[in-house]
C-alpha cells in the first residue's frame, strides 16, 4: 500500500519535472556566461587571459575558484566528521585478503597507480582529469593497500598532516593573490601558452595541491570508515 503511494508520488513528480523542463526556455551557448569562458575573453581584452587547455579546469580553478575551495572544504569537513564519529569505535574491520600473492600484487601495482594519479593531476589543465580524479586514484591505492593486509595502517597521521598542509597552502596562495593582484585566488604567476605543461599560472599548482588534499582526505575517509583512530 505504501509502495503504491510512493509510486504514484514519484510518477507525479516525474511528469511534473518533465513539464517543467519542457516549459523553461533553453538559451544557446552563445548567450550564456560560458561562451566567454570558451573564448577566454572575459575581460574583453582580445587576448587569452587564462591559458588552461582544458576548459573545465579553467572554469573550476580560475573563473569559479571559490567553489572549488569550498568543495575541498566539504570533503575536509566530511572526513573530519567521519573521524569524529569513529574515534570511539575501537574494533577494526578484518576482512583483508591478506594472502601472500595479494600482498605482493598490491605492492607492485600501487606505485604504478600512484604514478598514474600524479600524472592525472599534473596534467589537469591540459587533458581530462585533474586534482579530484588524480586524488581519487591515490585514495584507491590506499584502499588497495588496506584491503591487501593493512599495509597503510600506521600512516594515518601522515595523511592528516598532508591534508591540513595542502589546505593551508591553498588558502595562502589565495591570500597571496589578494596581496599581489587585489583579489582572492588571483592568478599571479606567468600565464604561458595554451597547451604547454608550464602554463596558466597558479592553476597547475592548485590542482597539484587539490590532488594531494583530495587524495589524503579520501584515504582518511576510507581508513576511518574501517575503524577508529587509535593513534
Amino acid at each position, binding site marked *: 500500500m505504501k509502495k503504491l503511494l510512493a509510486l504514484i508520488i514519484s510518477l507525479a513528480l516525474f511528469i511534473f519535472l518533465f513539464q517543467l523542463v519542457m516549459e523553461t526556455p533553453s538559451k544557446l551557448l552563445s548567450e550564456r556566461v560560458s561562451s566567454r569562458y570558451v573564448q577566454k575573453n572575459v575581460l574583453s581584452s582580445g587576448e587569452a587571459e587564462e591559458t588552461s587547455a*582544458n576548459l*573545465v*579546469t579553467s572554469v573550476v580553478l580560475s573563473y569559479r575558484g571559490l567553489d572549488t575551495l569550498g568543495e575541498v572544504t566539504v570533503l575536509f569537513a566530511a572526513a573530519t566528521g567521519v573521524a569524529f564519529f569513529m574515534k570511539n569505535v575501537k574494533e577494526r*574491520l578484518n*576482512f583483508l585478503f591478506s594472502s601472500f600473492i595479494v600482498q605482493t600484487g598490491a605492492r607492485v601495482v600501487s606505485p604504478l597507480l600512484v604514478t598514474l594519479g600524479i600524472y*592525472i593531476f599534473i596534467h589537469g589543465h591540459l587533458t*581530462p*582529469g*585533474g586534482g*579530484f*580524479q588524480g586524488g*581519487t*586514484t591515490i*585514495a*584507491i591505492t590506499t*584502499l588497495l593497500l588496506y584491503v591487501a593486509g593493512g599495509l597503510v595502517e600506521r600512516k594515518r597521521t601522515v595523511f592528516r598532516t598532508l591534508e591540513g598542509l595542502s589546505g593551508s597552502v591553498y588558502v595562502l596562495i589565495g591570500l597571496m593573490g589578494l596581496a599581489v593582484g587585489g583579489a582572492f585566488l588571483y592568478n599571479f604567476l606567468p600565464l604561458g601558452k595554451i597547451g604547454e605543461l608550464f602554463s596558466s599560472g597558479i592553476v597547475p599548482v592548485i590542482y597539484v595541491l587539490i590532488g594531494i588534499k583530495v587524495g589524503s582526505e*579520501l584515504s582518511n*575517509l*576510507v581508513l576511518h*570508515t*574501517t575503524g577508529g583512530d587509535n593513534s
Partner: protein
Amino acid sequence: MTLLEYVIVGVMFLLGIMAVEVRNLFYSVIFLSALSILAAFVFVLMRAPDVAMAEAAIGSGLLTAILLFTLKRVEGGKNE
C-alpha cells in the same frame, strides 16, 4: 549509436529500480556501482570526459568501497 544510447538508458533504468528495490543490501550496492559506471559512460557520450573520470573513480570505485565497509560493519544490515 542511437540504439546503443537507448539500450544504455534502459539498462540504467532497470539498475536504478533494482538498486532501490532489491532486498539484499549487498546486491543493492553492486547495482548502484554498476549504475555509476553506466553513468560515467553517459557522461562520455555527453562529451564530459572530466566528469566521467570523476564519476568512475569516485562514484563507482570509492563510494562502493565505503558502502561495502559500512555494510560489513552493520553485519549485513538484516533487512527484515
